[in-house]
């Protein structure tokens, strides 16, 4: 499968990339690792006139301490998240989730910023960042702004990022030794989650339980009120609208969300 013809530019700096986006607006698409974009371009579901390759911008590749948070450059690859000693010590949920994305080849290319921007509700990392109460840092011609991840996804495959903005950084709190777990349910190796649940510090993120990554708010509230894990997990599917597809019915996904939440909360409590 061959994509529709397009122009390709690999700018040398972040400023040059932003200038291209400002000039071309919705005609331009950003390429980082390309492992979400190129498949949809090959299927001709996307046909951008201009592809701006930010995959090799050194300014977007870093993982560092920023006060009470860890700041991660948007171009950081899943592989780099997976093997980061700093993240293993400070935000251990994130490398554990990154390790479940795709396969090693995909993780050598895919990036954290790209995964968040693609906004696939079946993706692992958006729900993990949601469970972490992270922040997305956007930069564009009007300057830089920080958007809480809880406000980043207005709908399916959509974000509040403007076409002339780039995700430049993801910030997550240093959760340290707070209990965490990631329970991902698939039927095949190397596949998206049918449902997955990320738990950290009493917060619960849900993968593939609606049109966006979701928090299991009823479960979180019950836990905060002192409910047992069993009782709190039974509420995990409240307020969700899980999709139906060949892998599962909505009813089955609701069941999975409750069971996986119970398992994840149990693991997190034992950690």
């Amino acid at each position, binding site marked *: *499968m*061959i*994509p*529709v*013809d*397009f*122009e*390709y530019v*690999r700018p040398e700096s972040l400023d040059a990339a932003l200038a291209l986006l400002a000039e071309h607006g919705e005609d331009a698409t950003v*390429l980082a690792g*390309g*492992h979400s974009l*190129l*498949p949809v*371009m*090959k299927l001709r579901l996307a046909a951008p006139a201009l*592809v701006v*390759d930010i*995959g090799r911008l050194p300014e977007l590749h870093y993982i560092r301490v920023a006060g009470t948070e860890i700041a991660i450059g948007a171009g950081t690859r899943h*592989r780099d998240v997976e093997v980061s000693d700093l993240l293993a010590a400070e935000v251990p949920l994130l490398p554990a989730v990154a390790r*479940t994305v*795709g*396969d*090693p*080849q*995909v993780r*050598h*290319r895919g990036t954290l910023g790209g995964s968040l921007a693609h906004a696939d509700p079946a993706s692992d990392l958006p729900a993990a960042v949601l469970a972490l109460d992270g922040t997305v840092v956007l930069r564009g011609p009007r300057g830089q702004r920080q958007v809480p991840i809880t406000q980043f996804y207005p709908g399916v495959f959509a974000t509040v990022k403007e076409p002339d903005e780039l995700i430049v950084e993801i910030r997550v709190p240093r959760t340290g030794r707070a209990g965490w777990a990631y*329970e*991902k*349910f*698939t*039927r*095949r*190796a*190397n*596949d998206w989650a049918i449902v997955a649940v990320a738990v950290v510090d009493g917060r619960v993120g849900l993968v593939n339980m609606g049109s966006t990554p979701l928090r299991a708010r009823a479960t979180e509230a019950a836990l905060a009120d002192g409910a047992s894990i069993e009782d709190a997990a039974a509420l995990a599917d409240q307020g969700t609208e899980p999709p139906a597809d060949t892998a599962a019915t909505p009813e089955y996904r609701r069941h999975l969300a409750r069971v*996986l939440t119970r*398992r994840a909360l149990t693991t997190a409590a034992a950690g």
Partner: protein
Amino acid sequence: MKVEITVNGEPTGADVEPRLLLAHYLRENLGLKATNIGCDTTSCGACTVLVDGESVKSCTVLAVQADQQSVTTLEGLSHGVQLHPVAAAFRAEHGLQCGFCTPGMVLAAVSLLRENPDPTERDVREGLEGNLCRCTGYHNIVRAVLAAAGQDPDAEQRREAAGDAARTAPGFSAGEAAG
């Protein structure tokens, strides 16, 4: 658009369309046909090559993305009859049946051992998660990778047969029996 890519240690270049996939550049422009295209959807891993030493699926990389980088295909791994240790182990352990997945499987294994020189059997199975063998010849493929790592390829299976540990396939929930 002009690209310059070092392939198997040799400088190569061409004026290509940006939409040209790396897999097609290797096969059509350079005539290196060891890189097979199986699914064309980033699933099967038959087109796996190394870019700057790391495994990637070349059906999901543009040739222009590999500009100024170094690519290794199966042709560049061994030197004549002097087989690369991983290729030699695939041969010694009969880690192939029809052979279609083999180039990608070998390169994925090279990348895996570079990152984890002393893998467990489970590490190997998880590390090859992105490569499908439709002959289902996984058993000897895993043994070959363990042998290439200098391990007794049957040690873990013997240990497992002697015990009764529950096991789950990579990527699957361990479920209630976990721990």
